[in-house]
């Protein structure tokens, strides 16, 4: 016997009309809406970041080398339909009125910058304006500090080699300046053609040439593939991914948090679906018994209901997708008004995925309830109390929602750690909450003897079925926990981010400070009230891994080649530097420490090296074999000096070293850089302000994203509450009818119902407060690496909120309980 899809469609229409599917549909709507909004927002952030990264290199792709860019490469880019520009940078020195100044010259062709804009001021001081072109022929644009060092004014002449330039603008922001830390000295930007005529671009100029290209993703990729074999050893490609490296870790953490928040909404919607499906299944029992009487077998009955839900999932899911996009675009509109810079667009990639996940969620969470319909025997139409057949392996059905949740979790967050925490935490959490609720109920039962009749009736309903009462309380608690957690951890996380990236986060790196210069540099800054910590730095190469000379071709991870072939910056430290935490192994202690090395995880991973492996380093003439004794995770986005490779102090006693420091300078203090450049011309000044601005912008975008998720989570939490209370409403209506028939007046009935909801809310609030405090602490310390101390006020807030919410949610159902005439109920029973 098979029941056709046409019948399922009719059944869906009939059930929808009867209102039985509304709770299920709303839960699904919230879940699909949340998934769509979050993934659409993720897409937007990704695109926005790609644009931001584009600004860091002022292009979509950059080919950089020590030799001039061959003309045919430019032609190749133009043929591919790409916009292109050429850039040459090199350090030089200018003289003016007896002052010698190291400058960073940049020659740009027309079209520069291809991505992002330059901010310039045509009067100093004066208003700034954003322009997407560079200086014209004969013009020089310079940084403000050069004006102050050389005593220049706008309109003055500047001599570069054999060419004369008019200083016509001050550069306030240069999109690609922070890239790769090569901005050594004040910038002087001129036309590339002028520079070629100046005679400065000779073979001894130490110039870095670059070809910038921008265009469609496909065209850029084709160009990259075409040019890659021609690069040789002289050129390399810098793409958006590489440019993103600096902002990557902040983004990763932010996406984890958004994923976690979205999972909360999905989990809550799943619980609401499970509870609503339970009520739906309970109401379908008589109908199922009838269908069985009329000849439908079990597979046909289950198939019918699965198809009804599948149709519902597709219909409501589509509306959910539209809702998700709608809400996300509203948030994006707000973001456009609040944030500076362009926010990326969103795509339709999320729609199909979200719809699919909606189907998985609805079926996964409702099949355990629907499976109970298979236990309905046809004899139940004749004998209401007939024993229900127990479904074999029925507990195995609960694997489905867990699997569905795992699938959804993996779709939301690729971070296995987060997924494990949320999945394991929610399942164990629900069970623990049920246990705690049961314990609290028993304790309450013991202390509530001798209370009045209304209280006794109210409490009796909770005590009678401890298991289902515990499940109800635990479901409400779980919803409340996630909401508490989200407000709590969210506040904590952003507070921690603010702390980690305070307004005085370093905005300049000073590199290449010679040891003998340290005292002088320090004095310069100390006098101005700027503090700095200096870390030593040396340069070397990796020459062997476990005694073998490494071959980059043998490593699947492309990052391995830069570790094997490039120069490595490393440092040494007595203690584990701040912003670092040990992931494996031990930090060197008091004992023998020679021959040990500590690696950052992100550096070690591409090489596949672990604790105990031997690495050989060549530093100057010295070679050192070192055993990996620890692996660290490093908080790069703190913008403090950090190193992938750290040795114990004294590892390279004879190696020439330089010092590195990070400082924060307010705008008026930036004049100090001029003094620094004059007094210590070899010190490299690296401006990281652009990268910092980029990180801050991402945090702003992400926090808007969290608001969006939060809205969905609250909606899902409310649905759990309503679904849970609706699930027991029929029983309450029946019991109230019996009590009324026995002479219980409205006042006492109301008191008994209020008692039930008050106690339920208080217990749920208590359980939620305990759970939120515990999970918050675990997440804070293990995942987000922030400090969090649970607040005792949390308990009060949680209990009050729970009581109020349960009471409010119970109002709608309460009217039916109080108003239904007992005769009607008892006749139907």
């Amino acid at each position: 016997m098979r029941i056709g899809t046409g019948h399922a469609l009719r059944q869906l229409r009939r059930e929808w009309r009867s209102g039985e599917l509304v709770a299920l549909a709303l839960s699904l709507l919230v879940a699909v809406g949340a998934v769509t909004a979050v993934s659409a927002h993720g897409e937007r952030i990704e695109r926005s970041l790609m644009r931001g990264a584009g600004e860091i290199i002022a292009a979509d792709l950059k080919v950089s080398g020590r030799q001039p860019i061959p003309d045919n490469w430019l032609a190749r880019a133009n043929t591919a339909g790409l916009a292109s520009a050429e850039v040459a940078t090199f350090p030089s020195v200018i003289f003016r009125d007896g002052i010698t100044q190291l400058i960073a010259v940049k020659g740009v062709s027309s079209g520069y910058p291809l991505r992002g804009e330059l901010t310039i001021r045509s009067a100093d001081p004066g208003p700034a304006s954003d322009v997407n072109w560079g200086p014209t022929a004969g013009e020089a644009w310079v940084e403000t500090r050069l004006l102050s060092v050389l005593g220049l004014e706008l309109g003055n002449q500047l001599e570069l080699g054999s060419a004369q330039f008019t200083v016509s603008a001050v550069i306030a922001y240069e999109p690609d300046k922070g890239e790769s830390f090569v901005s050594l000295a004040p910038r002087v930007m001129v036309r590339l053609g002028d520079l070629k005529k100046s005679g400065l671009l000779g073979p001894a100029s130490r110039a870095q040439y670059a070809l910038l290209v921008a265009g469609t993703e496909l065209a850029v990729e084709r160009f990259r593939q075409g040019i890659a074999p021609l690069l040789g050893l002289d050129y390399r490609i810098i793409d958006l991914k590489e440019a993103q490296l600096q902002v990557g870790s902040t983004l990763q953490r932010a996406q984890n948090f958004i994923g976690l928040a979205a999972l909360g909404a999905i989990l809550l919607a799943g619980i609401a679906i499970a509870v609503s499906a339970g009520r739906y299944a309970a109401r379908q029992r008589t109908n199922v018994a009838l269908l069985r009487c009329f000849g439908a077998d079990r597979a046909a009955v289950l198939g019918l209901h699965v198809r009804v839900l599948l149709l519902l999932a597709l219909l409501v899911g589509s509306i959910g997708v539209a809702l998700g996009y709608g809400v996300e675009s509203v948030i994006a509109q707000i973001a456009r008004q609040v944030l500076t810079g362009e926010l990326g667009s969103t795509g339709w990639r999320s729609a199909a995925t979200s719809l699919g996940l909606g189907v998985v969620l609805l079926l996964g969470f409702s099949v355990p309830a629907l499976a109970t319909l298979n236990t309905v025997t046809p004899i139940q139409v004749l004998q209401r109390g007939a024993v229900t057949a127990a479904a074999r392996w029925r507990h195995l059905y609960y694997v489905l929602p867990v699997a569905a949740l795992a699938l959804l979790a993996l779709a939301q967050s690729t971070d296995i750690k987060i997924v494990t925490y949320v999945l394991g935490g929610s399942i164990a959490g629900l069970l623990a909450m049920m246990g705690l609720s049961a314990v609290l109920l028993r304790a309450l039962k013991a202390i509530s003897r001798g209370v009045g009749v209304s209280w006794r009736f109210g409490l009796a309903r909770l005590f009678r079925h401890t298991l289902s009462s515990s499940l109800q309380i635990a479901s409400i608690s779980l919803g409340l926990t996630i909401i508490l957690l989200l407000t709590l951890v969210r506040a904590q996380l952003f507070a921690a981010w603010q702390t980690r990236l305070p307004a005085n986060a370093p905005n300049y790196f000073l590199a290449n400070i010679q040891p003998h210069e340290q005292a002088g540099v320090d004095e310069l800054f100390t006098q101005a009230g700027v503090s700095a910590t200096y870390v030593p730095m040396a340069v070397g190469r990796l020459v062997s891994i476990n005694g073998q000379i490494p071959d980059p071709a043998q490593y699947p991870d492309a990052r391995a080649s830069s570790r094997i072939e490039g120069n490595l910056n490393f440092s040494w430290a007595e203690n584990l530097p701040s912003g670092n935490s040990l992931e494996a192994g031990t930090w060197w202690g008091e004992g023998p420490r020679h021959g040990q090395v500590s690696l950052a995880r992100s550096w070690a991973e591409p090489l596949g090296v672990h604790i105990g492996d031997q690495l050989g380093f060549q530093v100057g003439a010295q070679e050192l074999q070192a055993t990996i004794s620890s692996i660290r995770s490093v908080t790069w986005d703190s913008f403090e000096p950090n190193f992938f490779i750290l040795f114990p102090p004294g590892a390279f006693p004879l190696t020439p070293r330089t010092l590195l420091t990070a400082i924060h300078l307010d705008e008026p203090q930036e004049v100090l850089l001029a003094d620094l450049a004059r007094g210590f011309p070899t010190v490299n000044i690296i401006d990281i302000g652009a990268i910092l601005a980029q990180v801050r912008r991402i945090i702003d975008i992400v926090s808007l994203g969290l608001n969006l998720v939060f809205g969905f989570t609250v909606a899902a939490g409310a649905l759990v509450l309503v679904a849970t209370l609706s699930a027991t409403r029929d029983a309450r209506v029946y019991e109230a009818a019996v009590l009324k028939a026995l002479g219980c007046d409205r006042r006492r009935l109301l008191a008994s119902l209020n008692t039930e909801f008050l106690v339920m809310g208080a217990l749920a609030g208590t359980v939620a407060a305990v759970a939120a405090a515990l999970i918050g602490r675990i997440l804070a310390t293990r995942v987000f690496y922030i400090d969090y101390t649970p607040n005792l006020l949390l308990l009060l807030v949680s209990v009050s909120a729970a009581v109020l919410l349960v009471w409010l949610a119970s109002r709608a159902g309460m009217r039916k309980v109080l108003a239904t005439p007992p005769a009607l109920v008892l006749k139907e029973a």
Partner: protein
Amino acid sequence: MSDFILQAVGVDREVEGPSGPLTILQDIDLGIAAGSATVISGPSGSGKSTLIGLLAGLDLPTRGQIFFRGNEITALDEDQRARLRAGQVGFVFQSFYLMESLTALENVMLPLELAAAADARLQARQWLCEVGLGQRLHHYPRQLSGGEQQRVAIARGFAVEPAVLFADEPTGNLDREAASQIKELLFSLQAEQNTSLVLVTHDLGLAEQCQRRLRLENGRIVEQH
């Protein structure tokens, strides 16, 4: 055996009670002839509903065999019995058991759809007209009186033109006038369709119209006419 459309041979039914097995039915032997009307009567708790449940294949006896059209339904599993019932067995219940979310028309369509009837809607409409509810096709059960609901249930029961129709106290929830109309309808349709009717009732008027009468007491057949 071939004279009977439905036959029970040595049927016992026990259930587990709080103090051991409780016998509901014992040594039941009976045969239902095709096109006949049989009434099963007896005091409350005598096992009437259990017996028609077993005869309809809704449950299995503890011992004994039941045959429907020569097939031993006691040898079939639940799903096989369900498939055997489809389109061949109809039911009318004391509590009507109409689906609340379906209109009168849709309720009658249901067994027709399950029996894969091509023109379920048309047939259902004709059946409702036949029971005098042609103006109430799109009413929901709650919008119908008890008598009207039972007429929908009778239309539903006969819609698949079953070989056997089981009716459990079909007039039990109705007033005298409605009961009389239902009685008339039931027997006229039974005669028209040549359906075997198996009735459980306390209604003497209803019982008197049946050719065959069985009386159950304490799970045994104590009287047969």
